[in-house]
């Protein structure tokens, strides 16, 4: 499959600081790719180099098969960007704002269509400055769509929003994927990556410390989910499960079974009933990206949620 973005040995140095430290990755066409990492990890520096607006110290970047250094103009026509902490022209209405940005490109799609997709139609004549934070960000996403881009870059699109507004922005982003756009999402919220992303790259101190789908990351770096059977004949149950290929052991009189696949839980419970092995209580402990990040870096991803 052709790649939307290919990054090879990319490095950006600021004085003594390696803001981006020799990273390589690929983004497939049509996927939502999330760059997950805490503040200062180097996410913005990386996306802005891909967007052609910062120059790499070293390394190669190809966007839609074209080198960013050589084909800057062509690439700009084919990408849509929502910069971090973007605030648009305060005294233009939503419609005027979209029209403004749309006029900058050779190719543009109907503004009404964009407003339908992002659900802005009833706000089209409001001044940007009078919109709520969530609506501003949705306008920001809409602006990134005016040239019908192949790739949409969203740098921390929900930072500072309340949970409801965040949901609305997420829905707008999920809508982009349905349209077949490649989405490059930058975030420090793990739920955002979990909810939206097909692929996730975890960035820490300028490096990509892990990469893969959500399940792959959790399997590989999470503590994995664990099924707990409490009460009953623990030894007998553990033996039976091991025989059937499960990773089970007895800890403090309970059986702990590592879950590899998400639907394994039901299989296990059915299997135990078939065998006539009873227990008093079932519990599941989940692992998430937060665990993954903690395991990889020894640090917490974010203080807030």
């Amino acid at each position, binding site marked *: 499959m052709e790649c939307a973005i290919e990054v090879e040995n990319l490095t950006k140095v*600021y004085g003594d600081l390696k803001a981006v430290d020799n990273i390589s990755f690929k983004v497939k066409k049509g996927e939502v790719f999330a760059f997950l990492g805490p503040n200062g990890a180097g996410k913005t520096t990386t996306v802005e180099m891909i967007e052609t607006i910062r120059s790499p110290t070293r390394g190669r970047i190809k966007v839609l098969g074209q080198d960013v250094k050589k084909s800057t103009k062509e690439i*700009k026509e084919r990408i849509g960007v929502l910069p971090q*902490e973007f605030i648009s022209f305060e005294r233009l209405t939503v419609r005027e704002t979209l029209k403004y*940005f749309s006029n*900058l*490109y050779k190719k543009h799609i109907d503004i009404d269509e964009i407003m339908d997709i992002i659900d802005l139609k009833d706000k089209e004549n409001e001044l940007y400055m009078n919109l709520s934070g969530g609506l501003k960000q949705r306008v920001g996403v809409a602006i990134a769509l005016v040239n019908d881009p192949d790739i949409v870059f969203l740098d921390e699109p929900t930072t500072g929003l309340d949970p409801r507004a965040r949901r609305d922005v997420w829905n707008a982003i999920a809508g982009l994927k349905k349209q077949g756009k490649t989405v490059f999402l930058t975030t420090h919220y793990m739920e955002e990556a979990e909810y939206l992303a097909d692929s996730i790259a975890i960035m820490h101190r300028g490096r990509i410390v892990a990469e893969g789908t959500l399940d792959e990351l959790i399997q590989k770096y999470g503590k994995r989910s664990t099924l707990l059977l409490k009460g009953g004949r623990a030894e007998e149950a553990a033996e039976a499960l091991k025989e059937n290929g499960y990773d089970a052991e007895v800890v403090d009189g309970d059986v702990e079974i590592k879950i590899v696949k998400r639907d394994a839980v039901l299989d296990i419970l059915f299997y135990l009933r078939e065998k006539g092995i009873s227990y008093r209580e079932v519990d599941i402990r989940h692992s998430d990206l937060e665990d993954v990040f903690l395991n990889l870096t020894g640090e917490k991803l974010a203080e807030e949620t």
Partner: protein
Amino acid sequence: MNPKIIATDFVASLKNYLRNRGTLFFSIAFPVILILLFGAIYSSGGGGSYELYVKNFDYENGMIIAGMMNDSIAGNFTNFYDAVYAQLNGTGVVKIRIIKDSEVSSRKELQDYVESKKLKSVMVIPENYGMMLGLAIANENATLAPNVTLMLDQSEMQRNSIIISVISQFFGKSNLIIAGGENFMRFNTTNIVQEKFDYIDFFVPGVIALTVMTNSIFGVIESNTKFRKNGILRKLLTTPFTRAEWIMAKMLFMLFMSFVSTFVIIIVGMAVWNLNVHFNAYMFILIISGSFAFAGMGMIVTRFVKDEETAPAAANVITFPMMFLAGIFFPLEMMPSFLQVIAKFMPLYYVGQGLRDAMIFGDAAGALANTIVIFLFAAVVFAIGVAVTSWKEE
């Protein structure tokens, strides 16, 4: 350069401007208020009394005359003329201002003096007036007495009639005392013909220059700090909008604002203060050059002060002294000479002075000289401004 992109940005700037009361106020209302206010302050003519300048070519002899005359006129004064001045001041209608011998010692000098100081009413007492007057009285022949001359600016009719009536009354009274009413003391009038400039003529070009300065500097500062902070510059960098197009769009809008402000200021000046304006090419070149010069200065400021709040303060450090020292509110001649030297280093001075020469005085040579200075300055400063402004985050 894509004209459609430039037009798009221009229209957006225009909408933003029209919807922002703050910028509207400072670019339109504020200069208009300045003109109405300062025009009114300076045209009120000083509270009811008129300055009457006196050039007395016979002051020295006043002591001798006082000795010869009876007390009724000279009173306690040892100089006859001091008594005359005191009487005239005593009317409360005129204020005597003596033109000293060190300033004017001949009639030729007097003419130049009256023109250069734009005096409106001058009383001239001829040489040996006192002697001749005494001679006439002694011979009881009024024709021997010379005339006192009143030089009056013909455009000031009300003022002239008041001054004439004050002098007539005073002379009439004096004649009554001296010689029972015969006209020994007489005066004639001559016209002062000069192109007359009021304070408002001086002030309006200055306000235009000032407004061009504030519009341009603060306009650039907004687009270079606020738009940078808000990510608009970063966003535009990811679009096909080029830097050259951006500069072009912003400068066109700034010129548009400068001309709108100029237009409004001139209209108000003409409507309220009877301003008489010459429109010519210098005026346009000065406003365009001024806009570029101050835009360049704004760019240089934001190169060093990037913060949205502190950049305007930094710009104030530059614009404030210029506002008061570059001959906008008061003519340079009124300031101490070291400040006059400082003013010559301020671009605003050349814009203001050039506009005055071009719009008001019709002084083509002066306008050209100032235009050349500000044009060259603008070319250099704008080029530096563009060179030091980075749109890109490094």
